[in-house]
């Protein structure tokens, strides 16, 4: 059982880390700010999300697992709001802020 858990952790964490890489590359290579924002959100929800999911089986207590999920949700929330705020600011003032 624990082997299956470990494999799951390895797969999910690796995938999450890859999404970090993908998001970063996107942030670097995409031409304009809005698409870069799009790349950023991938890091928030998929990168961190997969890492969280991967870590869940390794946690020692339920409270800890709940906290992990809360962290992910919080980052999702702030990521979503930040994206909105930044996009709004861009629409008003152009990309220079």
């Amino acid at each position, binding site marked *: 059982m624990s082997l299956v858990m470990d494999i799951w952790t390895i797969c999910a964490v690796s995938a999450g880390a890859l999404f970090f890489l993908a998001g970063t590359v996107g942030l670097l290579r995409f031409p304009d700010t809005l698409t870069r924002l799009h790349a950023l959100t991938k890091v928030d929800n998929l990168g961190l999300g997969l890492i969280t999911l991967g870590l869940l089986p390794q946690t020692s207590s339920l409270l800890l697992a709940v906290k992990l999920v809360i962290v992910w949700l919080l980052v999702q929330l702030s990521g979503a709001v930040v994206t*909105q*705020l930044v996009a709004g600011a861009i629409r008003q003032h152009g990309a220079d802020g």
Partner: protein
Amino acid sequence: MSIASVFDIALVALILAIGASTILVRTAFAAVVMFAVYGLLLSIAWVRLHAVDVALTEAAIGGGMTGLLLLGAVARSRSDDVDRVRVGYPVRLAAGGLCALVVAGLAIVVLHPPAAVPTLAPVVMENLPPSGLGNPVAGVLFVFRALDTLLEKVVVLLALLGVWSLAPDRAWGGTPGLQVYAKPDPPLIFLAQLLPPVGIVFGIYMCWVGAKDPGGAFQGGTVLAAMWLLVIVAGLQKAPAISRLWLRGLLIAGPMLFLAIGLAGWVFADAFLAYPEGYAKPLIVAVEATLTLSIAVALAMLAAGPPERAQQQ
């Protein structure tokens, strides 16, 4: 070399690079942004140093609140992004030499630890049980070195009064100049409605868990302060006028209770700032809880700045 030390080396390199660019980068805004990132990395460094209490404090105060404060300041003085007057080359060279000297001196000291590293950890652990606390750092803050902690609260209050004292006379007693959005900003309001409940629960959790695990009044108070600021900035609630009695009362409630319990220790436990046997833990928890509130109010008001508008009657 283990993978953990690879991580440490990468982290240190990143911290130094970002620290240096905070100094060298051209615009003030970029420097402040760098600093926000820097605080974040520093709290990871504290985790690596096995100082989770400090990591929490750094994340909340060093990174979070200080970043907030600096960003607010740089936002207000954006129009002042004038060409920087640079100091002369000889001065920079002299300063560089001096700093290199300081770094070299400190590095020698760091690389030559004393033969027997002195530590108070065993003494702390030995004397911790009577207080009923499980967190040794809380033990040091509230039992062994309680005087420092009490004085530090007074320092924060004085700093707050110092900030307030910068108000123009006509605005005294009014509301701080914390800007709110002129028009409601839906995403921000959404955030200000959703985040504070979580934050408040977490702040209370920090304060409560601080007795046995990392956490405590400082960290909890900072979270509460940040949430309050968020609600004010989003325009959901007005900043309080600084003349409000409840505000002043909350500010001093924590230090006052701390002091009162300290003085009571004179009568009931034969020393100032000693806790009577068996009552230590509830008393400390009570002090921490009130301090959390006081710190929250004090930090929020510190970040909000001096009063700028006279109080509307």
